Every structure is written in structure tokens, then in C-alpha cells.
């Protein structure tokens, strides 16, 4: 392998890994606060993709406006979802909420098929945002630089919100114990809604970036990144925001390098993701940065 080809692979790996990381952060944040694996998170990616798509193509908005509206609407959808599908089940066994999340995910997918049709649509790439960069014989999209920067910014933002603000303190209190937190005058409903709003906003950003990177959108487009980023979140230790980022990068870099060094194994990329997951969980059951799993007696 020549140096150029290796560098090309590094560029590919950063671009894929940072995208996984970006989406995994949203997954893990919602889980960290309310202990719910929000399967519909993946479908919010799709919703954001479609809103941007229609904003740019049908309403002829500038791309940044379409993206902002997509983020806003997806955030509202996430909050509505919490109110309709999860809040009534808050005191039910955790498995019920999980099933409700899976139901929500199927609902969004099938609504998508009914409303916009099942066939994939080409997502527009705004020229001001996406262009090709050539460094010698290494070529990559501007997104390869943009996505990691956005991922790091959002990571820092989420970290600050959770650790430095009053809302963040309330969030952490709620994540420890719903009832005690509410006795301490924490408005649990408000905190959970805020968590979902932030999580859905992150999903929207992830969805837009995914659509720009792989510019083909369809109602089931969330399933694949949803699965991979869930794996990334679990690898990093679900509930841990920096962990999700590390997990995302490990997965992305691993997948690319597997193909780069063993091209004959290129059909087993997805299997690779699961093998790595199993190995990590064997040695660190809580994930790389996960809490120790201690059962309360």
C-alpha cells in the first residue's frame, strides 16, 4: 500500500467514523438521562433528511435555512413523540417503553413510505457546503473536514449543558432517580422533554450530514445508520457521551481499514462491527467508558 492510498483510507475512515460518532451521541444522551433506547432516533434522521430535501427543492430555500427548519421541526417531532409514546409509559416496566420506541420507529418508517413513496430520492448537495478537495492524489469531500468539526462542537455543547447548567444538573438528577428528583422540586416532565428536544436536534444534524455524505434518501434510510450507531454507542458505553464518540470512530476506522488491508474480506464489514462489539463487551461489559454495572440491592 502506497502512502497516498493509505492517506486516502485515513480520509475515508475519518469521514465515516465522525458520522457514526455524531449520530451515536444523540442515542447515548437520551439513554443516559432516561434509560430508554430510543429506536425511533434513527428515523428522526430520515425525517430531518426529508424536511431538508423538500425545503431546498420544493420551497427553494437556501440550504442553511432548510437545515435550520429541519432541525427545528425534528426537535418538535421528538418532543411530541415523548409526550405521545413515552410519557404515558414512564412508570410502566422499561420493556414497555422499549417496545413503544420500536413501534414509533415502524410508524415513522411506514408513514414515510405512505407520504413520500418508497423509492429513493437524490439529496441535493449545496455547492457552498460540499465540494471536492484534492491533495495530491488523495481526494475527499469537504464534509470529511466539516463533520468531525460539527461532531466535536456538539460533543462540547452537550458536555457543557449536562455538566455546567442548571438544566444539566436536573437532567443528571433525573437520570439517577425520577422520584427523588421530583421530590427535590425538579420538574421531571420538563427535564425529559428537554432531553428529547436536544436528542432529536442531534439526530436532525446527524440526519442532514448523513444525507449530504450519502446523498440518497428513502423512508428506511435510518435503519442502517441507526443500527451501526447504536453499536457505536454501546461500544463506547451507552450513556457516556465521549464514549459514543470514541465508539463511533473505532467502528468507522475499523470498517474502512478492514477493507483497506484485507480487500477479500470486504463483504464482511457489517459482521466486523458485531465482532468488535462482542469483543469489547466481553472484556468491558459496560463499554469502553461505561459505568460499572452495579445492581442495587
Amino acid at each position, binding site marked *: *500500500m*502506497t502512502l497516498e*492510498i493509505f492517506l*486516502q*483510507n485515513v480520509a*475515508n475512515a475519518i*469521514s*465515516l467514523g465522525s458520522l457514526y460518532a455524531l449520530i451515536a451521541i444523540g442515542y447515548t444522551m437520551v439513554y443516559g438521562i432516561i434509560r430508554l433506547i430510543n429506536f425511533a432516533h434513527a428515523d428522526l434522521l430520515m425525517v430531518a433528511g426529508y424536511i431538508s430535501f423538500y425545503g431546498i427543492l420544493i420551497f427553494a430555500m437556501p440550504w442553511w435555512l432548510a437545515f435550520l427548519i429541519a432541525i427545528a421541526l425534528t426537535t418538535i417531532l421528538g418532543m411530541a413523540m415523548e409526550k405521545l409514546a413515552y410519557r404515558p409509559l414512564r412508570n410502566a416496566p422499561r420493556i414497555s417503553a422499549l417496545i413503544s420506541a420500536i413501534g414509533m420507529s415502524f410508524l415513522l418508517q411506514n408513514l414515510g*413510505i405512505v407520504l413520500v*413513496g*418508497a*423509492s*429513493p430520492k*437524490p439529496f441535493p448537495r449545496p455547492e457552498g457546503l460540499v465540494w*471536492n478537495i*484534492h491533495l495530491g*492524489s488523495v*481526494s475527499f*469531500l469537504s464534509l470529511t473536514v466539516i463533520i468531525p468539526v460539527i461532531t466535536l462542537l456538539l460533543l462540547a455543547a452537550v458536555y457543557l449543558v449536562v455538566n455546567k447548567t442548571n438544566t444539566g444538573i436536573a437532567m443528571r438528577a433525573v437520570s439517577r432517580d425520577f422520584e427523588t428528583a421530583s421530590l427535590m422540586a425538579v420538574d421531571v416532565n420538563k427535564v425529559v422533554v428537554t432531553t428529547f428536544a436536544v436528542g432529536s436536534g442531534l439526530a436532525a444534524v446527524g440526519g442532514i450530514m448523513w444525507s449530504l455524505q*450519502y*446523498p*440518497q434518501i*428513502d423512508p*428506511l434510510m435510518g435503519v*442502517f445508520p441507526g443500527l451501526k450507531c447504536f453499536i457505536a454507542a454501546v461500544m463506547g458505553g451507552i450513556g457516556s457521551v465521549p464514549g459514543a464518540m470514541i465508539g463511533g470512530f473505532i467502528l468507522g476506522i475499523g*470498517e*474502512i*481499514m*478492514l*477493507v*483497506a488491508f484485507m*480487500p*477479500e474480506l*470486504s*463483504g464482511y*464489514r*457489517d459482521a466486523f462491527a458485531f465482532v468488535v462489539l462482542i469483543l469489547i463487551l466481553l472484556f468491558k461489559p459496560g463499554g469502553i467508558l461505561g459505568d460499572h454495572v452495579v445492581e442495587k440491592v
Partner: protein
Amino acid sequence: MMSKKYLALLALVMLAAVALVGCGGGEEQASGDAAQESDVIKIGVFEPLTGINAAGGEMSLEGIELANKLYPEVLGKKVELVTADNKSEKQEAANAVERLVNENVDVILGSYGSSLSMAGGPIAADAGVPVIGDSPTNPLVTKGNDYYYRVCFIDPFQGNVMAKYAVETLGAKTAAIVQDVQQDYSVGLSKYFEDSFKELTGDENAIIAKVNYNTGDKDFSAQLTEVKSKQPDVIFAPGNFTECGILVEKARELGIEAPILGGDTWEAEEFLNRVGDLNDIYFSTHFTAEEPVTEVSNTFLNKFKEEYPDRQVNAFAALGFDAYMLALDAINRAGTTDHEAIKEAIAETADFQGATGFITLDENGDATKTAIIKKVEDGKFVYESKVDPK
């Protein structure tokens, strides 16, 4: 006062009834009562109408419906199309055929996608219902299945056509293969291309890179970087139009300039939308509007332009059209809806005039036909040349 309430209630009940009938309409037709069954001949259609190959299934179904509009009757009875969506998934393909069998169809048409056809085939064979494939090109679809026939050519021929084009017209000495390991179509076609390419170049090592991906993948950067590092003269990448659209676009983004070749699945608007402004993209297909081969081609073309004025005529609609026409012809020749008789009639098909050419079925139930090579140019599929079978 009372009567008003009753009226409101009655209105509600009626509304509910209308809604129920509206929902249940399809099923009612499907189950059918005994009196109706005798004057309707049911033709089942299983195509991917949702999922990754939805566009392919839609094109095929349009062709079938077109033919049904032109020729709605056979043996003096009305033909009823019963459609089952196989959702672009192998498991669902088996279910779809099962459903059609349960609804007592007399012959089944479909499916776009060799893997889907192969998953559905055995179920139809067990039930003794003959199937006419419109566009599945993998040889294993009909091999070992006495009830499966098809109106299209098969992959050993298609692979050879593209290898020949690569070597003789494009002057290639080396090639790279990028294949979807989950699609029998992609793996099969790659294999036939590889064999022909090695034979034509006389070089056992002419295939200098072979990389895989899975259906539904969106990231091909690593695979294509491997291909780029080997610098092949051409790239052969048969597969679903969805993945291939992204793949071809990515290849050009990575600065790979070699011509990229594919198979008949590339003839889809979704593919064109992606790669329309790129160069040196070639593929083989079954039909072209530029060279109507039979009188039926013209009938098909005229009807297609009348029904879908703003759509590009495509091979899948033409093949769907032909599959329906052959089914009707076979039922006519059999003179009955007895499944064995229809099957025998299909097997005996010779010089049948279809929109895509004259169809004669061999002992496997496969058609031998001319292949068309098209290329992408200025946002359109352009006719390049045609290759007759030996």
C-alpha cells in the same frame, strides 16, 4: 329529536360501512365468490413495489398493466391482475408467491431481481403454478425449476457481452470487479464477466481487483480506494441501481477515471439522476426505443407514450409487457386454465413476437435474445450498439 339522533347514527354506520368496504375491497375481490371465479382469469404478479428495488418493480408493473389495458381478455374471460409486493426482500418474495398461490392465480409473472425470483420460484413449483419471469437474468432462476420460464436473456450471455465490449471496443486489458455479495444477480454476472474477460484477453490474471459490498451499503470509499490503487482499465460493477448510483458517483469523486460497466439493472431513472452528468458509464439492457425490433415493439411504444408521456421508455416495462403477453398467448394456446396445460404451452413457445424481440424458449425455459448496450450521456441513456446472440 329522536329521529335526528337516529339519522346521525345511521349516517355514522353508513360512513363506517363505506370505510370498511373501501379498505376491504382488495381482499373481497381476491377471495371472490364461486359465481365470479368462473368468468375471471387471475394472473398473479410479484414485484418489489417497496424497498430498495421499488423503482424496478414499478417499471415492470407499469408494463404489465399496459399490456393488461390493451388486452384485458383471454378465452372470452376478463383477466384480473393480482399484485403482491415482495418488498425487495427474499423472505417476503416467498410470502408473496404463497399469497398468490392461495388466491388461486393461474399463472404468475415476476420478479424484478434474480434473488427474489429464486426465493419465490420453489413455492410456485410446489403448488404447480407456472411462472413467467420478466427480468430475472440469473441462470439459476429457471434451472431445476420446471415451472419457471422467462422472456429475457440470461447472465452468461450478458456477462460475455460486456466483457467483449470492454476488450474489443474499450481496449481494456485489466479489469476490477465490485460486486454485491448478497445479490445472486451481481455475483453471478460478475463471475460470467470474469470468465469471458479472462478468455478474451488470454490473461489468467486480467482481473486485478475484486471487492465486495452488501445490499443497502452506502459507504463504498474503502472498496473503491482499493480499486483505485490497482488502476484497472475498466471496472465492472453490476448490482442494484440504488447502491450502484452512489458507488459510481463516489468512484468519480475519488478520481477514478476508468470506464465503469454494469448490467441491465442500471436502466432506472434513480440511477440516471445520480450519474447523469458523469462520463464513460456503460451497461447492457434488453430493449431500446431507438431500434424497435417487432411490430409489437411499436404497439408497446405507442401505448407507453400515451400512458406515461413524461417517462423514458425502459426495458423493464417492455419485459413486463412481454411476460403478460406470453402468459395470455399460452393460455390461449392451451385453451384452458389447467395449470399443467398452461405450463406445457409456455414451454413450447417459439418465435413469439414480443416488444423486446422474438422469443423462443430453450429446454431450461430461457430466452435467447439480442442485447443492447447503452451509455450515459448528458443526463440520458443513449443507445450505443447491439449484440446478437451466437
